[in-house]
């Protein structure tokens, strides 16, 4: 039985029996778990477990074929990416997706919501209405870029950055949107350990400010630093949830990762 959304005041997002299939092949099925407000939850699982598909569903890019998603008590199962973003759900991508020909600072500034200067009329004929806001955003973006150690690249085209710098820029861009729920899809994939360390530190600092974070990662050392608890997925389902030590010792998790036959022990915390 699932908990009704809204009963637990600390639940920001509830995923209830969610399922999604690609042409008949179920990538996610009967997937249920909650995200507590202000916590960092790790999402791990072997390749093909459905983690990235779940991220797509949560950010509104894919629509769940069954089950429901409740965000702050509201049913958002059928809400698209624009609607999710306007509710404060912001994501990064597994393969970094930047605006390659835009400078780093513009990549960050674009993420801020409610920009008055995005009106075509104002942009051409009424600059005074947005100029101050623009300067404020520019200062914020500059500070964010400095905070993530990219200040020497601030005016470079994003396409010229290295893999680790791209990850940092994606994080800066996501934070510029003032998220309530951050979905990180493998933020340290292919990243130099020092930058991975910086990312972990920054994620912890952001979480301390009260942002709820769901982070997909394969790097257990990274998750140890950032995650309050971990959800393990395999074959589209949740296998286990708990502390990293707990899931490490979980027989079904070990079996899923190492490809051994399943144990009959019931799944759960």
């Amino acid at each position: 039985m699932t908990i009704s959304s809204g009963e637990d005041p600390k639940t920001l997002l509830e995923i209830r029996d969610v399922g999604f299939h690609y042409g008949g092949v179920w990538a996610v099925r009967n997937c249920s778990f909650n995200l507590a407000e202000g916590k960092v939850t790790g999402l791990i699982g072997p390749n093909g477990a459905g983690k990235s598909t779940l991220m797509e569903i949560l950010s509104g890019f894919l629509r769940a074929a069954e089950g429901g998603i409740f965000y702050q008590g509201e049913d958002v199962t059928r809400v698209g990416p624009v609607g999710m973003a306007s509710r404060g759900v912001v994501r990064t991508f597994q393969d970094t997706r930047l605006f390659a020909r835009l400078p780093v600072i513009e990549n960050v500034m674009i993420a801020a919501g409610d920009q008055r200067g995005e009106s075509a009329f104002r942009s051409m004929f009424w600059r005074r209405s947005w100029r101050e806001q623009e300067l404020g955003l520019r200062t914020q973006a500059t500070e964010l870029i400095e905070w993530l150690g990219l200040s020497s690249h601030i005016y470079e085209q994003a396409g010229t950055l290295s893999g680790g710098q791209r990850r940092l820029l994606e994080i800066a861009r996501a934070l510029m949107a003032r998220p309530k729920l951050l979905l990180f899809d493998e933020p340290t994939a292919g990243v130099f350990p020092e930058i991975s360390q910086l990312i972990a530190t920054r994620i912890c600092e952001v979480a301390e400010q009260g942002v709820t974070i769901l982070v997909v990662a394969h790097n257990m050392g990274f998750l140890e630093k950032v995650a309050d608890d971990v959800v393990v997925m395999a074959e589209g389902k949740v296998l286990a949830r708990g502390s990293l030590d707990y899931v490490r010792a979980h027989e079904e998790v070990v079996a899923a990762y190492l490809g051994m036959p399943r144990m009959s022990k019931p799944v759960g915390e």
Partner: protein
Amino acid sequence: MYFILDLLLLGCINAIMAAGVNLQYGYNGLLNVANYTFTAIGAYVAGVLTLGKAPQGTSWIGGWSLPWYVGLLGAGVAASLAGLIVFLFSIRRLRSDYLAIVTVAAAYIFYNWATADQGLFDGGNGIFGVPYIFGGSTITTNEYAALLLIPTGAILAICVWLSRRIFRSPFGRLLRAVREDEVVVKAFGRKVWHSQLKIYTLGCFMSGLAGAMFVFYITAWSPSAFLPGESFFILAAVIIGGTGNYWGGVLGAFVVVEGLNELTRYLPNFGYPADFGAGRVMLIGVGLLLVLRYRPEGLFPERWLHWYERRPVTLPVTLRRRPLPTAVTDAEGANR
């Protein structure tokens, strides 16, 4: 003298078209292969609004002898509306890559419609005798071209000025972000097609204005003036000049359309005249290939316009914020 005036005037008209295409393709990545069709719509509408009743044996709609500036505005509005229809048929349903195909279809549909429908713009014969907008019937062609250069140059200046304003604004940033990656823009809560619709119709408006000035200059318009292949030259001008750079289109229009087209007149003649014309098109094609190979960003790359690099942030103290992350530090934060 007339040659120079003609060169400048046609250069300005082509540059207005290029400014419109640059907004669509350079800023937003919308490949409008029918850009010349919107110019033609502008030319026809400006023509029939300023012309009188069709003489015996011909027929066209309108014929209200309105002032030229009404014709100019009507041309822009008609081209925008046509652009809106094409856009709604394509973008809302298809990915923007397919807009190119839809615009080619639209170009052929309009071309065949204008050719076949005698009642619309007199079919294949087209409209003729569009009145001079200055000087009446006493003015010489030379004087008229010189006078027409003033409003045409002014329209070009306004188009470039608007392009510059858009480029430097958050709207321009949004357009360029959409060009780079629509998916990410959606992930940050923007309705991508809203900005695409606005810039597409604005680009078509500019093409319509160019068409109006064209018909005011040559005083006639017919289907032979806007063969669907003509759009290629404007696209080539924008790509060679530099996509995304508002000066690039202008430069491209003068260098490619005027420069290559007109200066090749001085090349030694060979073979049939048709061969010579084909040779010019081939020359533009080779130029396009060379630019794409050796300078893919064009002669004036967009990155040259990163103006803010040289501008220090000068903010009033009241606007300064606390150190980031700001994500949840204000009243609208995540703890709410």
